[in-house]
C-alpha cells in the first residue's frame, strides 16, 4: 500500500474551518470517526495532517487512532490528489479480459503508477479490486463515470479526450476569473 510519493504540500497554513463544521455536525454520535474523515477528505480532496490532528482533538481520541484508521482503509489519502480520479479495475473479470494491458497503457500515458498523481495535478491514478461492472470488462472509472468494453487503444482515446476537456474546463475557470480552490472537483457526489 504505497501512498503517493511525497507531494508538494502547499506552504500556506490550511484553513481548518471546514473541519470544525464537520465535527460540529457529526462528532456527537458514537462511531462517527470514519464518516467524519470521509467528509474531511471530500472537503480538501485529501486528509491534511493538520486536519487529522484537529479531528483527533475535536473527538477526544488519540492521534494514533485517527492515523490507524487513515492508513488502514484504501479510500483515505494523506497527500493532495488530482482533480479527477481514474480508477482502473483490476477485478477478476477485467483481468481475464485483458485489464492488465489496459492498466499498463494508462500508466504509460499518464506517466504515473498506482497511487500516483500527474504533475499537473489533473489526474490521480489507482488500481481497484472491482468496480462491479464485470459484464463490461475491462472497465475504468473516471470520477463517478464508468467506461466499459475497453482495450488499450480505446482506453487511450478515452483518456486523451477527457484530458482535453479537463484542460479546457480549467482554462475556462481561470479565464472567467472565478477562482476555484482545489479539491472541489476532486470528488463527485
Amino acid at each position, binding site marked *: *500500500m504505497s501512498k503517493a510519493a511525497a507531494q508538494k504540500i502547499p506552504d500556506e497554513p490550511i484553513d481548518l474551518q471546514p473541519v470544525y463544521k464537520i465535527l460540529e455536525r457529526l462528532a456527537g454520535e*458514537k*462511531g*462517527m*470517526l*470514519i*464518516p467524519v*474523515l*470521509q467528509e474531511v477528505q471530500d472537503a480538501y480532496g485529501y486528509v491534511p495532517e493538520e486536519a487529522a490532528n484537529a479531528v483527533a482533538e475535536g473527538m477526544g481520541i488519540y492521534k494514533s*487512532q485517527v492515523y*490507524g*484508521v487513515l492508513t*488502514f*482503509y*484504501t*479510500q*483515505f489519502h494523506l497527500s493532495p490528489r488530482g482533480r479527477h480520479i481514474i*480508477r482502473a479495475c*483490476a*477485478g*477478476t*473479470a477485467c*483481468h*481475464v*479480459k485483458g485489464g492488465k*494491458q489496459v492498466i*499498463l*497503457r494508462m500508466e*504509460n500515458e499518464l506517466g504515473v503508477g498506482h497511487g500516483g498523481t500527474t504533475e499537473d495535478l489533473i489526474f490521480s491514478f489507482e488500481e*481497484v*479490486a*472491482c*468496480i*462491479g*461492472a*464485470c*459484464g*463490461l*470488462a475491462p*472497465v475504468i472509472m473516471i470520477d*463517478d*463515470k*464508468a*467506461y*466499459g*468494453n475497453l*482495450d*488499450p*487503444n480505446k482506453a487511450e482515446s478515452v483518456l486523451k479526450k477527457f484530458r482535453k476537456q479537463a484542460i479546457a474546463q480549467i482554462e475556462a475557470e481561470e479565464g472567467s476569473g472565478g477562482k476555484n480552490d482545489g479539491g472541489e472537483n476532486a470528488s*463527485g*457526489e
Partner: protein
Amino acid sequence: MASDTSGQRLFIGMGTCGIATGAEGVLAAVHEGFDKLKIEVPIVKTGCIGMCSQEVLLDVETPGRARVTYRQVQPEMVEDILQKHVVGGQPLAELAIGQIIGEGESAYEGIPGYQDLPVFKKQKRIVLRRCGFIDPDLIEDYFETEGYKGVEKAIKTMSPEQVREVVKESGLRGRGGGGFPAGLKWEFCANAYGDQKYLICNADEGDPGAFMDRSILEGDPHAVLEGMIIAGYAIGASYGYIYCRAEYPLAIKRLKTAIALAEERGYLGDNILGSDFSFRLRIKEGAGAFVCGEETALMASIEGRRGMPRSRPPFPAVKGLWGKPSNINNVETYACVPPIILHGAKNYAEVGTEGTKGTKVFALTGKIINTGLIEVAAGTTLKEIIHEIGGGIEEGRAFKAAQLGGPSGGCLPSYLAETAIDYDSLIQAGAMMGSGGVVVMDETDCMVDVARYFLNFTAAESCGKCVPCRLGTKIMLGILERITEGKGTPEDMENLKDLGQQIKSASLCGLGQTAPNPVLSTLRYFEDEYDAHINEGTCPAKVCTALITYHITDNCTGCTLCAKKCPVTAISGERKQLHTIDQELCTKCNMCFEVCPFNAIEKE
C-alpha cells in the same frame, strides 16, 4: 394507425452498466426525439435487468400490447424507434431482443417472447423479479408489485416467533457465501439477552467478479429494506445499518431515496403500521477494505475502528455491534425474505435442492457471450449456466474452467460442468458458492496466472492481524510469482499444498481460511499446467510473459505502426517490408500485439 401515445411508457436501463455503455446519451436522444415529434411519453429509469452485454436497453410499452425491449441502442437509433413504434405502433423487430407479454396483452409478430429467449428460459427470478422492470426511485412501482405486503403480513398477522419459524422452515441460507441457515441465525439473536439489538446488512460486496448486490440495491432497493424490516421485527431489533461499499455511489443514492420514502410512508420509524414495533435504518459507507466483508471486521468498521476481525465466540448474535446482540446478513439474503413471508415457506422451498432451497443470483462474466446477472434455481448445473443461459464461449473457443466464489472459491474444470450448483456439492468439488461470481475462462487463460492473481489480491487485502494469513499468503504468492516467471522448482507444488492447508486451518477469519482455495483447486484440476511452467518452462495458454516470445509473421505489410508504438524501440524494418523484433530489447509489453491491424504478431 395509432398516433395516440397516451398510456405508453419508455424504460431505459440506468444501472451502472447501462450508464457505462451510454444510457445517458440515449436518454438525451429520447428527449430530443420528443421535441422533434412533438410527443411526451413517461420515461421509467430502471435498474439492471441483467443483460449487461446487450446494454443500452430501451423498452417501449403500449397499453394492451407486449412490452418490447430494444438492445444495444445507440442515440442515432432512437428517433426511428420513437417514430415507428411509439407513434406508428409498429415495432422494429430487427432491433428488438424480445418482448414481455403480460396477461391479456397481444404479442407482436417476429419478436421472441422473453420466456423463449435462451438467456431467460432457464432462469427462475425471485430476487431479481423487479430489477429492470420498475423504477427503483418510485415507491408506487414497488407497491404495485406486492411491495411491503410482506411487512404488513408479518407485523399485522404474525408474532416474531412465527416469522422466524417460517424463515427456518423455508431453508433459506445466507447468500453471502457461508450458507448459514438464516432463520437459525435470527433465533440465536432473538434469544440473546440485551436491551438493544442491532440488525446489519452487509453490502460490502468486495469479491472481484461479483456485482449482484449492487444490482439489487440499484434495481430494487425497497426489497432489501423490506427484508430488513421483517428481520428487525423477528429478532426484536430497533436499529439497523446498511454497510455499503463507497465504490457503489449509485446504489447508495438509491438507498437513501428508498429509506426516505419508506419513512414517509410509515414503513420505517416509530410504531410501524400502528404496532409497537419501531425500526430505523442508517447507511454506513465503507472505506475500502475487503476484509470488512467479514462480520466482526465489518462491525469494527461501523464502530469507527480499523476493520479487523476478532476470534469467535462470542458470536455477533450474542455480542456484536457496540457489544450488543447483532444479526448480519447480506443484501441478497434480505431480498429473499419478503416473498418467503408473503407466499409461505413451502412455496419457497419447492425450488432448489435438498440442502439449498430457493434460487441463487450469479454474476456471469469472463469469456462468455451473455455476460450479466442471472438467477437460477439452486441445483442448476454449470453446463446449463454457461452453455444455455450464457450462450457459450466467445469466438467459439473451448470452455476450460469456471472460477466460482471469487478469492475464496475455486476453479472447476470443464469436465465437472455437470456439477449441480448448490452449497454442498461445490464445497465437495473444492470451490465455494461465495457471493456468486462465475468467471468463465477459455483455453487462452493460464490457470497458474489466475491463482497468482487471486493470491496477489488476498495477500494485499489481508488485514495483518494473524500470522498464517499475513505471512502465509505472501509466501504462497512469492512461490506462484516464481512459477509464472519460469523459475519454479519441482518441490513448489508440494510446498503450496502444504502451506495452503496450514493457512486454511490456522487463520483467524474467513479471509485467510479460504484464501488458498484458488491455488489448491487449480493444483487439483490443472496440475499439468503447473508442471509445464515448472518442468518444461512453457506457459500453455501463452499468458505468462516470461515464458513467451513475440515474433512477426508473414502477415506483416510493413505499415510501421508497431515500430512507432513500441516503447523500447525493439522493432525495426523498412516501410512496406517485413519487420522484426529484437528479442534482446523486447520487454514483452504486448503493445505490438494490440496495435497490429493485420494479426501479424505471434506469441510463442
